[in-house]
C-alpha cells in the first residue's frame, strides 16, 4: 500500500500490541498504559503518531531490535540539543516516522511548580507526542516525539517560557545538582549557584558543539554524591569541609542507648574506613579528625549527632566517564579543597572550569574524554598544563615504581617548599 493509504489505516485502526500489553500487568506504573492513553486521546494531534509509535515498539519487541536511526535536526541558532530519530520502518508506521527528542534543561535541583509542569504539558500536547521523561540520564527533561516540522515551534514556546535546550554531541552537556541547600543538612555549598554560574558561563559550548567530545559538570553537595558526579561527569564538584566535624555528644549517647553498644561499635565505629572513630567507655565519641576522610558514613547514620564542620567548600574531581573506549573511569581528585562562598570564589570556579574546557578543546583527540586525555599524557603533564600543583590528596599513595627519571627532583622539591612558604605567609596575612 502507499504511504498515504498506510497513514489512513493508521488513523483508523489501532495496532495490536500483545507483547507490550504484558507490561500493563503488575503493581508498578506502566509506561505502556501511558503510551496507550496518548494513542487513545483521539481528539489530540499526537494520537496517530502514538499509535504508530506503539506499533513500532511492538515490532521491536517481536524482532528484538531497534528501528530508529539518527540524522540532523536542529533549531535556528543552535547546533545541538535535539536528538533526531527517523524510523527505519516508516513504511509500516508512517505517523511516527519522525520522533525527535528535545532535551530541555530543568531548573537546577529539579524543582517544579504544578503550574510549570502544566505549561510544559500544554506545549507538548500542541507540538509533540505528549510523552515526557523526568529526566534523562543526561539530566534533561526529555520531550520525546516531535516531527521535524514541529521541533522549532515547540522549542520557541519552551524558550519563551524561560527554558533552554540542553547539550548533545561533542559539547558541554546539561548539568545536574542535588537537592542540597534546599533541603539537606549535609550540603556544604550553594549547589544552585554553582550549577547555574558555571553552566551559564559556557552556553556557547553547549549550543554550538565544537569540543573533541562531550564534557559534563555535575554538582553534589557532599561526598554522598547523590547525583553520581564522580563517575558520571568530567568535572565533578563535591561539597566537603576542612575543619573538625561537629559532634553532639548527648545525641551520640542517645544513639548508643537506643541501639546498644555492640551494635554501635560494629555498625559505626568499625565501619569507619580510616579507623578515625572510637567509642569512649562513657559512650561519647572520640573523633580523630586528622584521619577522617569525610566518607559521610557516621554522619549518615547519626544525622542528629554529627554534622559537617564550619570551614566548608568543594573538592573537584576530573575525568569520570563510562566504558568507551579505555574502560570506565571515576574522576580523579584534582582540587582537594576550594572555598566557594564569595562572588570572587565563584568566579575562580568558573575560571578553573574555563581553563579545563580550553585545555580539553586544544589537547584532546577526537572522541576522547578528558579522563582518557589525562591517562594518555599522565597526571604530571596534565597538572602542569592546567597550572595545578601536585598534592598528595590526588593519589591513593605516591608512586611504587622506580621507573622515572628524577634528576630534577631537588628543583621540584624546592618549588614545593616555596609554595608552602607562600601559603603560610598568606595564612598569616589572612589571620
Amino acid at each position, binding site marked *: 500500500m502507499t504511504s498515504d493509504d498506510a497513514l489512513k489505516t493508521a488513523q483508523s485502526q489501532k495496532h495490536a500490541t500483545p507483547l507490550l500489553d504484558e*507490561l500493563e*500487568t*503488575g*503493581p*508498578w*506504573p506502566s*509506561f505502556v498504559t*501511558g503510551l496507550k*492513553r496518548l494513542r487513545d*486521546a483521539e481528539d489530540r494531534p499526537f494520537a496517530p503518531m502514538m499509535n504508530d509509535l506503539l506499533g513500532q*515498539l511492538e515490532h*521491536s*519487541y517481536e524482532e*528484538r531490535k*531497534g528501528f*530508529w536511526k539518527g540524522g540532523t535536526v536542529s533549531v535556528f541558532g*543552535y547546533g545541538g540539543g535535539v536528538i533526531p*530519530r527517523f524510523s527505519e520502518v516508516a513504511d509500516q508506521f508512517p505517523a511516527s516516522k519522525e520522533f525527535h527528542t528535545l532535551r530541555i*534543561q530543568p*531548573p537546577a*535541583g529539579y*524543582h*517544579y*511548580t*504544578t503550574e510549570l509542569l502544566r505549561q510544559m504539558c500544554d506545549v507538548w500536547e500542541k507540538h509533540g507526542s*505528549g*510523552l515526557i521523561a523526568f*529526566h534523562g*540520564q543526561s539530566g534533561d527533561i526529555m520531550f*520525546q516525539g516531535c516531527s521535524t516540522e514541529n521541533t522549532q515551534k515547540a522549542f520557541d514556546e519552551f524558550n519563551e517560557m524561560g527554558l*533552554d535546550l540542553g547539550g548533545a554531541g561533542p559539547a558541554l552537556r546539561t548539568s*545536574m545538582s542535588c537537592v542540597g*541547600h534546599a*533541603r539537606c*543538612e549535609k*550540603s556544604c555549598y550553594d549547589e544552585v549557584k554553582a*550549577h*547555574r554560574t558555571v*553552566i551559564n558561563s559556557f552556553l556557547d559550548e553547549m*549550543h554550538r558543539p565544537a569540543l573533541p567530545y562531550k564534557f559534563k559538570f555535575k554538582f553534589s553537595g557532599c*561526598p*554522598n*554524591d*547523590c547525583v553520581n558526579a564522580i*563517575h*558520571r561527569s568530567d568535572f565533578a564538584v563535591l561539597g566537603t569541609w576542612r575543619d573538625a566535624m561537629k559532634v553532639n555528644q548527648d545525641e551520640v549517647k542517645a544513639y548508643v542507648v537506643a541501639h546498644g553498644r555492640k551494635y554501635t561499635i560494629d*555498625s559505626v565505629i568499625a565501619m*569507619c*574506613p580510616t579507623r578515625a572513630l572510637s567509642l569512649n567507655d562513657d559512650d561519647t565519641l572520640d573523633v580523630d579528625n586528622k584521619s577522617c576522610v569525610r*566518607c*559521610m*558514613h557516621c554522619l549518615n547514620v547519626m*544525622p542528629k549527632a554529627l*554534622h559537617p564542620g564550619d570551614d566548608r567548600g568543594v573538592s573537584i574531581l576530573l575525568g569520570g566517564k*563510562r*566504558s*568507551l*573506549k579505555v*574502560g570506565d573511569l*571515576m574522576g580523579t581528585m584534582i582540587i582537594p579543597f576550594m572555598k566557594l562562598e564569595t562572588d570572587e570564589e565563584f568566579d575562580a570556579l568558573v575560571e578553573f572550569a574555563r581553563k579545563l574546557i580550553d585545555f580539553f578543546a586544544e589537547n584532546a583527540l577526537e572522541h576522547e574524554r578528558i579522563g582518557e586525555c589525562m591517562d594518555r599524557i599522565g597526571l604530571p603533564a596534565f597538572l602542569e598544563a592546567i597550572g595545578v600543583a601536585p598534592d598528595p590528596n590526588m593519589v591513593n599513595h605516591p608512586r611504587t615504581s622506580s621507573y622515572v627519571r628524577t634528576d630534577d627532583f631537588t628543583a621540584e622539591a624546592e618549588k614545593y617548599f616555596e609554595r608552602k612558604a607562600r601559603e603560610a605567609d598568606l595564612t598569616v596575612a589572612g589571620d
Partner: protein
Amino acid sequence: MNAPAQPRRPIESGVPDPFPFMHPLMKKNYGNWDWHDRPRPGVLRHVARNGDEIWTVKAGTQRQMDVFSVRKLCEIADTFAEGYVRFTTRSNIEFMVSTQDKVEPLIDALTSAGFPVGGTGNSVSMISHTQGWLHCDIPGTDASGVVKSLMDMMYDEFIKEEMPNRVKITTSCCQINCGGQGDISINVQYTKPPKINHDLVSKICERPAVVARCPVAAIRPAMVNGKPSLEVDEQKCVCCGACYPPCPPMQINGADSTKIAVWVGGKHSNARSKPSFHKLVVANLPNNAPRWPEVAEVVRKILYAYKDNAKDWERMGEWIERIGWPRFFELTGFAFTKHHLDTWTGSRKTMNMSAHVHF
C-alpha cells in the same frame, strides 16, 4: 513575493533559576537545615536550624510519562500537597508539605492513583535506565520494559525500607552502559562480532574514525567485493559494539547474539568505601522481551541473598567484600568462570595478590 519570515533567535537562558519553583520553606531555609529522619518509608522529615519542618512524600513513576500522568500528579500536588514537587535523579517524584497532617492523605491519594510511595532510606529505589527500543538508535534491548518487569518484582522492596542499605539498580541497553554503576546492573552484553553490510560501509561511515573507535584495534580498512569497506579481526574483537554507533552497517545486535549480563557492587557514593565499579555475575542471559523472566530471577536471587545476609549499612559491594566472592557465588548459586577473571588493562591489580582467602 514576500521576504521569508526571519526565524526567531533563541534566548540563551541556560539553566533556569529554580527559586521561583521551590517550596517556600525550602527557599526560607535554604542552606540552613539541621537534621532529618524518616517517620515511615516514603516519607522524610527535614528540620531546619530555626525549628521549621518540611515533610516530603516520595513516589515512584514510570519515568516515560504521558502528559495525562503528569497532569494527574499535578492534580494530586494541588489537592493534597502545596503545589510544589521535585524529581530525584532516579525519576521519583517528591511532594513537599509544611505540616504533618497532610502526609497521610497525600500518601493515600498517590497510592490510589497507582503511584507507589517509597524509595527512601534502605529501600530498593527506582531503577535508573536508558532509552532502549523506544527511542535509542543503537539499543540492544528496551530498558523501560526491563525496568517495569523488575520493579513489579521488587515492588515491596520499594515501598518498604528493609534492605541493609540503599539498593541502586541500573539498566543499560548497550555496552556503552549509559545507566552507569549500580548495586545491581542489568546491561546488554553483545556476544558476537558485528555483522557487516559491506555495500553500505563506504557510503555511510567515516572509515578512519571507525577504525579509531575500536578499543582493541580489531578493525582495519579492506576492499570487499571491490568496494572499500572495513573488516574485523574476530580473534581480537571483544564484541563491545563501539563501532556500531559511528557505522550502523556494522550491526552488533542480533536476535540470538544480544544478551543480558548482570553485574553487582557498583557504587557512586563515597560513604565508607570509595566509589567502585560493578563486577560481573552472570552473562549470556536471554534478551527475553516482554518481561525478561530469566533476568528478573537472577536479580531476585542477588537481592534476597543480600537482604538475608548483609549487615546493616553494608552496600551490596561492601557486603560481598566482607563475606568474599566465593561465598557470594555459593549463596546465589551462580557459576564462577574464566570470564569472571578480568583481562582488560589494569587487570593485574584485580588479582588477589595476598593470602587473604574466604573459605
